[in-house]
């Protein structure tokens, strides 16, 4: 009895010192908690469906951020990774009979390969040339898909794919837990030494090279990692929707990823996740006014960019937290002095 209360006490202390101490962490914590507990409130299939798709697209958007937000290699054809994994998973499931827990990782590996294939020619390209080249790849693949409808199903796509689990609730937990897990992994990558080099490449690639670092290798790594995570999203999408069609390669999907990331906050990983969980359900909600849906959506995005150019999460974070001028640690905005070094906060 005594030991248990000690443990609970310690847990509470960790919770207080680690999570409650910063509002951004508190928000993140309760976001995760809420996602995990939603089925207790409602199991309405439509709501779960929207949240499952949000989770899948959150992985997808964060993977764009990992590549383009961090290394600055603007990828305007991110749907390529999504689509490659989608078709790979679908074909492996339909023709080889592999179950989803195998087709999704294999689809993601195919997307890594796609990352290499795109990454190599893109290494030499910069700015608008890189943007155009990346834009072209999904278009090329779409072309190929229409040329061999016998295998790919052409315009109709591949249907008759196994469901993720068979139960909406299990699907929900798979999607949410994978999203939270992979989001955490991506965030850890960006906070690592590799992440630092990604940052530096975005700032000044020549200077990174002159610092003795093989930027080619790191840029390819970024393409492959990004492909991996986007691929998981693509594979999950296919098994959830039970169809792999050319829409998984669409230009609109690539742009959507960019909009989600920039709306939420670029080069943060959590920003894109927030961006998707706000914009995707909002877009679904707007179906009640289909005529002006796109107009409302676009207006919202433009307004956010106008008033919060660094994205929503970065803006909110700067409002609720201040950086200590001395030790650069973040503090809740209401504090007068830094929680660690006691320097005046103003």
């Amino acid at each position: 009895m005594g030991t248990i209360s000690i443990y609970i006490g310690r847990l509470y202390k960790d919770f207080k010192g680690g999570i409650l101490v910063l509002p951004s962490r508190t928000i993140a914590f309760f976001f995760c908690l809420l996602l995990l507990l939603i089925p207790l409130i409602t199991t309405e299939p439509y709501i779960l469906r929207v949240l499952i798709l949000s989770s899948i697209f959150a992985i997808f958007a964060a993977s764009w951020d990992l590549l383009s937000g961090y290394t600055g290699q603007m990828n305007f054809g991110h749907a390529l990774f999504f689509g490659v994994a989608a078709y790979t998973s679908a074909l492996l499931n339909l023709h080889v009979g592999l179950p989803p827990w195998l087709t999704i990782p294999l689809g993601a590996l195919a997307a890594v390969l796609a990352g290499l294939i795109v990454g190599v020619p893109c290494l030499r390209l910069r700015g608008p040339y890189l943007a155009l080249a990346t834009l072209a790849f999904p278009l090329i693949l779409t072309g190929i898909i229409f040329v061999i409808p016998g295998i790919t199903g052409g315009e109709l796509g591949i249907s008759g794919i196994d469901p993720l689990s068979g139960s909406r609730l299990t699907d929900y937990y798979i999607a949410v837990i994978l999203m939270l897990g992979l989001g955490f992994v991506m965030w850890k990558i960006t906070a690592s030494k590799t992440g630092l080099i990604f940052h530096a490449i975005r700032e000044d690639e020549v200077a990174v090279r002159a610092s003795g670092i093989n930027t080619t290798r790191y840029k390819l790594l970024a393409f492959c990692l990004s492909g991996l995570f986007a691929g998981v999203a693509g594979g999950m999408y296919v098994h959830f929707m039970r169809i792999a069609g050319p829409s998984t390669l669409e230009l609109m999907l690539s742009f959507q990823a960019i909009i989600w990331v920039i709306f939420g906050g670029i080069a943060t990983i959590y920003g894109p996740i927030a961006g998707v969980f706000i914009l995707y359900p909002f877009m679904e909600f707007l179906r009640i006014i289909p005529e002006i849906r796109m107009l409302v959506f676009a207006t919202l995005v433009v307004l956010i960019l106008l008033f919060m150019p660094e994205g929503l999460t970065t803006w909110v974070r700067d409002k609720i937290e201040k950086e200590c001028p001395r030790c650069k640690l973040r503090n809740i905005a209401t504090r007068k002095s830094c929680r660690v070094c006691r320097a005046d906060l103003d």
Partner: protein
Amino acid sequence: MSYPFFEVENLTKRFGGLTAVNRVSFQIGRDEIVGLIGPNGAGKTTLLRLITGILRPDSGRVRFKGKDITGFKPWAIVDQGITGTFQITRPFRRLPIIANVMVPCLCPRALKRGEWVKKIEAKAQDALEFVGISDMALEKASSLSHGDLKRLEIAKAIATEPELLLLDEPFGGLNPAETELLAKSIRRLHKGGRFGRLHSEGPTMIIIEHKLAELMKIVDRVIVFHFGEVIADGTPEEIVKDERVIEAYIGKEVI
């Protein structure tokens, strides 16, 4: 067989019709500090960029410790032991200053040599300490003054633990007191040894500089550049008396 520590041979670089570096050859021994001087536009920076692999020469060779390193990628050159700084500083502006120096600390050469260093951050901190800006470590690089950016540039270069260090106008924009301090640091670096977790091989140096009075105090030898060619090569005493050098430098200004 013996070979020179560092050697460039007939190095040539053209930009369109302009020959910025024209058949340049010289050799440098292991423990020298060499000044590279010449009027603006003489091709000094271009020569440095050819050596560090940022530019590729049109013809000619660069050899380091007997090995032909012509056309190596910049990171491979650093791996061999040659690091240069940029005349126009290139900080990672939106990153903290300490992170700026952690990047070169993460290059394979630095990792191999600093295996005993537990934390990259600590080593980067010592490199900043060496150039005298460690108190600003957590600030963003964009907040640094011009002179401090020059020092950051040097901290980044020495973090790779080079055997040949190329400095492009390290005193540019520094006031006399700062120049004095930096000159002292450069001499200490050249002697070699350990500065906290930062190790110095006592690198050979090539220093491009316009502040001749300061430069002459540090260097053993001076190479003079004019229109992409070497016009003189000797001790500081010889150089200040050289007819062609006086003409290249002062002559033009008088006319």
